[in-house]
């Protein structure tokens, strides 16, 4: 019997640069290589080929040195001590990162205010809600004032309110304190609220690297038009490329294929033919764009280029 060895390339042909103070989202389906990428950037794994520079250092070679300048939060792995209050973990981390006592006190005061931790700072972690724990987790990761914060699924399992609070704090950190954020998440809402740039990974390769706003613009195939008619309306005379996707009393939702039809023309036509109380034009959710990129067999860049030409 011989054991067969199979080599799986978790990430390959990946090249990108993140400017200081930016917020980048790494997205992709399960097994796309997002977490591997974070581990490579933190120096946990070493690439078999190619090179990585984080703050000018090879993260694998200078892992210990780099540890003082970066930090990471892995949604499902806690560094808080379960039976002790969060303050104890903060104090220990202060010692681990060799922070001067005066500086540590000042830093903790800042973080307690920023994350609004004062009401449960002295309560055992086991008694905290998931949202409170995650706030403590992120505060703990920031105790040594890192320049880069890596977050791997930081909002996993959180309810809407807790998630929103965590994302708001991270956005403040990024926008005001200029902490560079590199985040993986399956939640496109989080990504859209927090990040300016996005890298879409699939099967270990970058399928798209873009600014989120640009990505929205370039990948739009459709727009959603929601119309509330005033009273009864006759059957809509819809032009080609427009279809009804939902109908609920006087409210009708239409999907306009932008390759075939202009959304403004559709609106003008409906308003001219009917009595309308309210009308809104919406973009499709980011999620559907990303889903489209995952499923698309064509290279994403080329498709984006084609769409850009259509828009132009």
């Amino acid at each position, binding site marked *: 019997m011989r054991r067969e060895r199979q080599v799986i390339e*978790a990430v390959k042909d990946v090249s990108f640069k993140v400017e200081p103070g930016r917020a980048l989202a790494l997205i992709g389906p*399960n*097994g796309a*290589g*997002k*977490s*591997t990428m974070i*581990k490579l950037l*933190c*120096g*946990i*794994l070493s690439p078999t080929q190619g090179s990585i520079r984080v703050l000018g250092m090879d993260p694998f070679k200078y*892992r*210990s040195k*780099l*540890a*003082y300048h*970066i930090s*990471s939060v*892995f949604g499902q*792995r806690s560094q808080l*001590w*379960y*039976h*002790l209050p969060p303050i*104890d973990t903060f*104090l*220990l981390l202060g*010692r*681990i*990162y*060799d922070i001067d006592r005066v500086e540590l006190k000042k830093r903790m005061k800042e973080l307690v205010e920023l994350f609004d931790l004062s009401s449960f700072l002295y309560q*055992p972690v086991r008694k905290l809600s998931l949202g409170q724990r995650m706030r403590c987790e992120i505060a703990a990761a920031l105790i040594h004032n890192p320049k880069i914060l890596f977050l791997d699924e930081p909002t996993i399992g959180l309810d809407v309110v807790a998630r929103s609070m965590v994302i708001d704090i991270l956005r403040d950190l990024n926008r005001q304190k200029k902490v560079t954020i590199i985040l993986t998440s399956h939640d496109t809402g989080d990504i859209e609220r927090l990040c300016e740039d996005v890298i879409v990974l699939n099967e270990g390769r970058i399928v798209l690297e873009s600014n989120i706003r640009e990505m929205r613009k370039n990948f739009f195939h459709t727009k959603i038009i929601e119309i509330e008619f005033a009273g009864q309306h006759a059957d809509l005379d819809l032009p080609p490329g427009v279809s009804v996707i939902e109908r609920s009393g006087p409210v009708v939702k239409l999907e306009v294929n932008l390759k075939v039809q202009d959304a403004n023309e559709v609106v003008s036509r409906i308003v001219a033919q009917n009595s309308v109380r309210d009308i809104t034009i919406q973009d499709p959710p980011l999620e559907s764009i990303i889903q489209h990129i995952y499923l698309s067999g064509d290279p994403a860049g080329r498709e984006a280029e084609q769409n850009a030409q259509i828009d132009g």
Partner: protein
Amino acid sequence: MLKSMDKYLAAAALSAKNYLAYTSEVIFRSGFLVVILFVFVNLWTVTYSRSGAGVIGGFDLKQMLWYLVFTESIVISRPRVHQKVEEDIRTGAVSYTLARPYNYLLFQLSVSFGERMVRFISTLMVGYAVMSVMIGPYLPGLSALPFLMVTVALAMLADLIGMITVGFLAFWVEDVSPFFLVYSRLQMLLGGMIIPITLFPPFLRRLSEWLPFRFMVYAPAKLFVDCDITQVWSLMAEQIFICILLFFIGMSVYRMGVKRLDVNGG
């Protein structure tokens, strides 16, 4: 050097504080000790009375029983650090610690040492109370106490490094419990937990002297019942040497393991 050790001392202190939350487990374990001590008292009382000897293997009956209180307290207080390390490796959690500015072995050693100190002190207190009721109290010389504390600490450190090293085998195998079983049984038998090594037949005694286990169990317990200040310095030197040797073995195993680290999940 002192500055870099500061984080490990802080981790040990925090671990001790954290473990105080497990008071019910400590009481349960100590309850088990009461049963063991009851058996030992009866067993050795019969042995000494039947043999007619006042001293066996350098111990009189009282010393023998207090020796056993001490060895049992050392062994029972052992935390499951090998399982923690095994779990860290199996789940990939060990890889995340690589990006933190501490040595994984030293950090686990500190955490388990803090926990073990709480367990050891509470177990010893219960054992001391029980044995005092059964055969009367015993007070080691005050001058021996500082040496005793250092020797106990070194014994525990050596044992914990050994256990962590056994845990590191999880880099290669799925389950380290068979290896730990061998390690713990060798320690119980050849380390002098049940019988002092002075009672061993010559070949077994020679074997025990070549192995590190006697420094983890026998040596501090012997010092507890018979503090020979003339030998204590050489004992501590030997214990320090064992700790350093085991640390280097542990670090070598860890480094080899980390090279082939396979992080679960992606």
